[in-house]
């Protein structure tokens, strides 16, 4: 049962990391133009540094 003391914080921490990453992407506007992004990936001059 002692292992729970490690596993619960670990699982919470990993979840929090994912949440933080998602929050950051949302702020960065990664989800502003889903339709355009779906098409952009097919372009030859793929811009890997979108603003």
């Amino acid at each position, binding site marked *: *049962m002692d292992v729970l003391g490690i596993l*619960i914080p670990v*699982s*919470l921490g990993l*979840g*929090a990391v*994912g*949440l933080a990453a*998602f*929050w950051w992407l*949302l702020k960065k*506007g990664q*989800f*502003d*133009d*889903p*339709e*355009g992004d779906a*098409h*952009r990936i*097919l*372009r030859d*001059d793929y811009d890997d540094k*979108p*603003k």
Partner: protein
Amino acid sequence: MTAFADPARPSACPACDVAPLAEQIAGSAPTEARLMLAVPGIHCAGCISGVERALQALPGVHDARVNLTLRRVAVEADLDVDVDTLCAVLTEAGYEAHELDPGVLAATEVDARGRALLMRLAVAVFAMMNVMLLSVAVWSGAEGVTRDMMHWISAAIAIPAVIFTGQPFYSSALQALKAGRLNMDVPISLAIILAVGTSLYETMLSGEHAYFDAAIALCTFLLAGRYLDHRTRANARSAAQELAALEVPRALRLNGQVTETVGVADLAPGDLVRVLPGGRIPVDGVVTEGTTELDRSLMTGETLPAAAAPGDAVHAGESNLTGPITVEVQAAGRDTDLARITDLIAVAEAGRNNYTSLADAAAKLYAPGVHIISALAAIGWFVATWDLRVALNIAAAVLIITCPCALGLAVPAVTTAASARLFRKGLLIKNGTALERLAQVDTVVFDKTGTLTDGAPEPMGLDQFDAQTGGIALALSQGSAHPLAAAIARELTAQGVRPVQVDDIREQPGFGVEGLWEGKPVRLGRAAWVGGGEAVGTTATYLRIGEAPAQAITFTDTLREGAAELVAGLQAQGKRVVLVSGDVEAAVTRFAARIGIEEVIFEAHPAAKAEAIAALSAEGRRVLMVGDGMNDTAALAAADVSISPASALEAARAASDMVLTGGSLAPILDAMATAVSARRRIKENFTIASVYNLLAVPLAVAGLCSPLIAALAMSSSSLTVSLNALRLR
């Protein structure tokens, strides 16, 4: 991208290093402007590249980025770059473009509500997964101190999460209660609060059952529904606001002999405004100087350009085609006809919002019922056991298990599936309830120009001209920017005709083009001005060479792809089809006969179109309006449901519930079929949710509903509803 000087760069010239710094200290004067253009026609990867390349090739443009979801392009450019040049470049590259006023759009630029919902959903999912993990341990037999610890950790995760993620429901419920109503959010909020409250109380007394997982799962499922709902409406921005952004923002004011560029807002009645050919008239007023022809199609739908001379009235939104004119301002800004149409739309939109969707209707029945059952259960158990703790637990269980996860998902899941399906077929749904309304349509009203037709006049019979006549016609038509002349020039060039030498080509604004060919006068233009021939009844222009009788060149509107099939298909389904147009009687009736429509309304100005729709609605008809112009926007907003083609004006598309993304009209028939089956699926979903409630509520009232059963029942009903939505064909 803008390259800024790197401040760390060592330099031989110390002053050079200081200069940018000084600029920074001075508050860095803006060196570039952010411009916003509406590009309605773009739809694919090729368009994105095309638009961005065309703009980035321009000097002074630093960056251009297309947002395909909003059909807009944001341009970063030097301050002196003119928006009109950008639009012209895009038009040349084959993309229709309009300027948008960034100030007006600032409010809608970032989808703040969508972001907030997505953020809350992410937090809810994170919390739900972790709490569920702990709950599984409890369900599989954790006892005593371990169980209490699990419950406390669950509480520590769930309580802040529920407070944060449930905010949309709490605020909506609070508003409803303040207004003395009940909506779906009231039982939701009450269930969440009761569930968390009793769970916390139970945990403190180290009780066996805690509903933290149920409370946060509730938030998650409902937020998912809300977000799906929001996504399907993401493009539905207020038509009135788009219109405001489209209004001509600047005008050339005559100040003595010099002209100055001023904002339209600064114009006052009595001012003189200069309007150059190709420009849009910014105000309502009277022509004081110059003759020209006006393209009034934006306001009236009339395809023929109208002549304007001193003394004639002109209106904001009309395009000046051939000659420069001076206009004395009578009304500007909010007082123009254009602004009045905007107001018409706002009023009509408010009227349409009265439509009660199936979901709202269900909520009206549902919310009071749930409260009554749960209150009765609580009272019953309290009377039976005299134990408030048990009674509250039962009440919470009833609220949780009846809580409308499935109902919250029933509509958005179906509409999202249907929108995705129709989008692949070329129809974009902007309004969440549009499909429900489309399913009930029994009358379809079409606009003529630009909707059933392509909107571009096409000259007929040019191939019967000999090379010489054709050459003269081409030479003359190239001398004018008039739409009819442009159509002739396009057609003749396509036929391989070469222009002959015509000297002294002069355009007589409002009449036509004339020149000298081998010493003989040649003219192309209005019948009366050209002279020596008979005017025919249709849209036509006339060519006269020397003293020979004038020849008429007649024009026809080309049918849009799928138009004939659509009208035939609708009539086969027994729908009433009406044609309404601002064009003259002859043109409209002839066109109607050609496509097989019996009911026509002609010479209808914008308000008359909206009235025609209102009259049909008053007869008890459910009206679908299909239109594309500024003159249709009020009618589009007044109809029960409206569709506009992609080529339509941004304002018309904003006023419509659905937009055709391709050139063909055929997807409208698909949409009607899909709408009917979507409505059936929504009703099925309500049945599923009701049946599930009928089974689960007695369990909860009887006190047999443990958190495990509640979680299972809730998830399975939500999943069933979502899966049923995917069956949509």
